[in-house]
C-alpha cells in the first residue's frame, strides 16, 4: 500500500458538475488517482457514479470543473480520445462483436499492417500480440476463437485485454461481476491485482460492497450526486458504506411486511423438474400470500428455472401444478391462462416495447380480456380506464400514458410499466426476476410495496434476486440454488445472510474441500 501512496497522483478531477434537463445530477465531484491504485466507487443507482465515469471516459461533457492528466488539462472529446489518452472504460454491457474472433475484437479499431503501403493485416503479428495480451489476463483461448463461443467471464477478460492493448493507464470497471461465475470473479480479481502491480490505476464500480472492500485501496461513496465520503480501506466497513450510501439505516429500505397469519393453499407446485445442464430435480411449493425468495449466484440456474416455469425454455422431466391444474404443456400463453406472470431480468429486450407508449405496454398481456364480439374489437374505454387505474396503482410518473414512449422513462418507471402490464392480467402467481435491477432507491421502495400488496391480496410471489439483503428484507421464505439445484431453504425466522451465502457458494466450497 505504501508504495502506491508514495507516488504522486497522475489523474485528478476537481469540482465536476453535470446537469440533465436542468436537474443537477452531479455536484462538485472531486477525486484523484495514483498509479497502481484501486479506487472503489459505490452508491445507489442514480447517485452519480455512471455520470462521473462517463465524463471521465469522454462519453459526456462536463458542465463545470476540471480534470487533469499528468498535470495537463484533460477534456476528452469522445471515447476514442479518452482511450488514446490511456483511459479505458469497460462497460457492464460488453462492447464485443460476437461474429468476430478474439483477435479481431482486440484490433478492430486498427490492425497492424503487413507492410507500409499495403493494406493487408499482419496476421502473424496479430496472433502474437493477441497471445501476449491474452496471457497477461490469463485467458487461455486461441486468438482465432469466435467471441460467440466464449463465456461471459472470458469475454470480460477479452475486454480487459483490449484495454491493455490500447496501453490504458486507467481502467474503469462498471459492475464487472454481475454476470460472472464465482470462479470467474476470482480470476478477475487476480488480474486486477496484477494490473495494479504494473502501475495501472483501476476504478472499480460495484454494488457488491464486500468485493469493493476486499479489492480497493480507497473507497468513494456517492449519494444523490454528492460525494458523501472517502476513506482508505482500513477505515471503511460495509455497514458504514451502506449508511453513507442511503443516508439512513437498512430497516427503512424495505416497507414493513406482515407475513400471512396462516400459509395459504399452494398456488404453484413444482416436482422433479430437470433439464440437462440447466436445472436438476427442482421441487418446491409457492403458497397464496407468500413471497418466496430465490437466491443463488450468477449461473446457479435461478433465471433459467423461472424461464422453464413460464414455458419459455424446454424441460425434460418434472411436473408443474398451477393452482389446481396440472400443466401438461408449458408455454407463456398457457401459463398466463392459468394466472401466471413473469417479469424477466432483461426489461429492455424482453419486457417492453421501447418505441411504444406506456398504455400500449401495460395493455399488451391482457388484450384478449378486452375483446368484444367475434372480431375481438377492443373495448377502448374500458381498456383505457383499466390501464389508467393500474398505472396509478403502481405510480408510473409520466405526463401522458397514451403518448409518452416507454423509452423516455427512467428505469424505475419502465419497471413499473412492466409490473403494471402483469397486474392488469391479475396474476395469482408472479415470478419476479431481479425486479429492482438498475432502478433507484425510491423506485425500489415502491416496487417492494407493490409486491407486499400483491401478496396481501392472495397472490404467490417468487422473488429472484442477487442481493441477499433484498431477499431477507422482502421474503417470507428463501430457497437457495447452486449449480442448478435447490441447496437450502430458510424460513424468515432463520434468515442468516452468511448461511445463505454459504449455501449459494456450495459448489465453490466443495471444490476447495
Amino acid at each position: 500500500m505504501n508504495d502506491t501512496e508514495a507516488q504522486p497522483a497522475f489523474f485528478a478531477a476537481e469540482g465536476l458538475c453535470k446537469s440533465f434537463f436542468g436537474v443537477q445530477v452531479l455536484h462538485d465531484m472531486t477525486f484523484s488517482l495514483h498509479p497502481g491504485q484501486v479506487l472503489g466507487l459505490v452508491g445507489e443507482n442514480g447517485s452519480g457514479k455512471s455520470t462521473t465515469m462517463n465524463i471521465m471516459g469522454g462519453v459526456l461533457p462536463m458542465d463545470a470543473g476540471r480534470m487533469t492528466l499528468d498535470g495537463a488539462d484533460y477534456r476528452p472529446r469522445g471515447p476514442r480520445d479518452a482511450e488514446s489518452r490511456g483511459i479505458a472504460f469497460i462497460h457492464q454491457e460488453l462492447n464485443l462483436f460476437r461474429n468476430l474472433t478474439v483477435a479481431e475484437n482486440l484490433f478492430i479499431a486498427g490492425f497492424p499492417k503487413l507492410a507500409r503501403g499495403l493494406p493487408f493485416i499482419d496476421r502473424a503479428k496479430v496472433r502474437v500480440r493477441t497471445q501476449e495480451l491474452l496471457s497477461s489476463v490469463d485467458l487461455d483461448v486461441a486468438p482465432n476463437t469466435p467471441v460467440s463461443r466464449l463465456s461471459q467471464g472470458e469475454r470480460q477478460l477479452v475486454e480487459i485485454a483490449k484495454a491493455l492493448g490500447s496501453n490504458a493507464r486507467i481502467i474503469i470497471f462498471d459492475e464487472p461481476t454481475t454476470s460472472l461465475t464465482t470462479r470467474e470473479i476470482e480470476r478477475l480479481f487476480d488480474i486486477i491485482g496484477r494490473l495494479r502491480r504494473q502501475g495501472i490505476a483501476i476504478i472499480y464500480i460495484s454494488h457488491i460492497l464486500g468485493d469493493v472492500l476486499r479489492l480497493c485501496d480507497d473507497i468513494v461513496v456517492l449519494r444523490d450526486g454528492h460525494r458523501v465520503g472517502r476513506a482508505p480501506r482500513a477505515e471503511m466497513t460495509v455497514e458504514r458504506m451502506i449508511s453513507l450510501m442511503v443516508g439512513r439505516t437498512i430497516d427503512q429500505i424495505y416497507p414493513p411486511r406482515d407475513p400471512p397469519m396462516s400459509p395459504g393453499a399452494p398456488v404453484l407446485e413444482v416436482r422433479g423438474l430437470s433439464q440437462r445442464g440447466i436445472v436438476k430435480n427442482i421441487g418446491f411449493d409457492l403458497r397464496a400470500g407468500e413471497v418466496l425468495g430465490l437466491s443463488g449466484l450468477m449461473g446457479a440456474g435461478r433465471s433459467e428455472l423461472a424461464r422453464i416455469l413460464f414455458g419459455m425454455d424446454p424441460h425434460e422431466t418434472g411436473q408443474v401444478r398451477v393452482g389446481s391444474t396440472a400443466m401438461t404443456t408449458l408455454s407463456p400463453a398457457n401459463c398466463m391462462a392459468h394466472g401466471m406472470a413473469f417479469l424477466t431480468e432483461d426489461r429492455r429486450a424482453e419486457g417492453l416495447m421501447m418505441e411504444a407508449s406506456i398504455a400500449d405496454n401495460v395493455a399488451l398481456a391482457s388484450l384478449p380480456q378486452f375483446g368484444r364480439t367475434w372480431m375481438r374489437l377492443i373495448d377502448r374505454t374500458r381498456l383505457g380506464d383499466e390501464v389508467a387505474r393500474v398505472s396509478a396503482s403502481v405510480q408510473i410518473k409520466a405526463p401522458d400514458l397514451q403518448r409518452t414512449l416507454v423509452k423516455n422513462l427512467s428505469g424505475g418507471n419502465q419497471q413499473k410499466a412492466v409490473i403494471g402490464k402483469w397486474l392488469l392480467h391479475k396474476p395469482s402467481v408472479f415470478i419476479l426476476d431481479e425486479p429492482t435491477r438498475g432502478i433507484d432507491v425510491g423506485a425500489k421502495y415502491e416496487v417492494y410495496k407493490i409486491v407486499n400488496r400483491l401478496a396481501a391480496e392472495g397472490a404467490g410471489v417468487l422473488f429472484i434476486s442477487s442481493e441477499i439483503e433484498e431477499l431477507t428484507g422482502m421474503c417470507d421464505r428463501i430457497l437457495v440454488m447452486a449449480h442448478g439445484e435447490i441447496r437450502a431453504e430458510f424460513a424468515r425466522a432463520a434468515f442468516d445472510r452468511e448461511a445463505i451465502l454459504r449455501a449459494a457458494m456450495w459448489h465453490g466450497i466443495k471444490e476447495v474441500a
Partner: protein
Amino acid sequence: MIARGVPGNRTTLFLLQNTPVLLFIVLIVGFGMMSPRFLSLVNFVNIVVQAAHIGIIAIGMTFVLLVGGIDLSVGANMYVVAAVLGLFLQDLPLSVSFPLVIAIGVSFGWVNSWFITRLRVPAFIVTLSTLFVGRGLALYFSGNKMVGFSPSVLSLGRASYLGVPSAIWAFAIVFVVAWLTLSQTTFGRQVYAVGADPEASAKAGIDVRRILVAVYCIAGGCAAIGGLVSLSQVAVASSTFGFQKEFPVIAATVLGGTSLFGGRGGVLGTVFGAVLIQTVENGLVMTNADPYLYPLVISAIIFIAVLVDSSRSAILERLERRQIRVERG
C-alpha cells in the same frame, strides 16, 4: 458446451453444415446422368462464364448486405454504365473508357450512400428511387436506343488469356480482391463489425459512416464491372439491360449464406451461390427441358438451399442458447 449439447450428433452437424455443397453435388450428378455433355470441362467453364456478371455484382452486394444494408439499384447502375460507355467509346479508347465508367459506377454507389448516411433515408427506399432515376438517366444517354459496341469490346468478351476466358478472369480478380479486402484488411473486418452492431462499432472507434459509404461505392463499382462483363458478352444494351437484376443478385448472395441482417456471410459463399444458380439453368438447357419449367426448378432449388441453411442456423442457435441468455444478464 457445444459438445455437451449434442452428444453423438457430429455426423448430422457435419452433413447440415455442408448441405449446400451436397445439394450442389446431387445436382451435378443428376444433370450429368441426364446429359453426358453437362459434365465436360468446357461446360463447366461455360457455367462460370455465364455466372460471372451476376457473381461480380453479387460480390458487391455481399459488402452491402454485410453491413445490414441493401442495394436495389445495381441493375440500373449497370444500364447507366452501358449507356455512358456507348457515348465514351465514340471518342475514347477502351483503356480510358473502362476505368471512367467504373468510376461512374462507384459514384452511383456514392450517391446512394450520401442519402443513406447523411440524410438517414432507409437504404431500401434510396436505392429504389435511384433505380428509377438511374434507368431514366441511362435512357437519356442512350437516346432510348439500343447501345451497340465496337468489335473491340466484343472481342474482349470472347478473349481468353492463358486458356481462361476473360469473364472468368474478371470474376476471379474481383473475387480475390474482395476476399482479401474482407478477410485481410482492417476495413474488411470493420465491415463485419458494423454489420453486427453499428453502435458498438462507433464506440470501438470505427468510422461507421466511412464504412457505409465505402460499401455502397464498392457495390456500385462491382455493378459497373459486372455490367461491363455482361456487355462484352451480349454485345448490346437494350432498354431492359440490367432490368430487375437485383433479384438474382440478392438471391445469389443470400444463397451463398450472407445474412440480410448484416454481420454474417462472405464472398466465397456468394461465388458459390451465383455458380449454383447458373448450374441449374445450364443443366436445364443441357437436358433440353421445357423452358416453362426453368423458373419453377430454379426457385425450388433456391428454396431448398435456404431452407437447409436456416434449419442449420436454428440448430446452431439452439446449441448456443444458454450462452446467449447468460450474456444478457
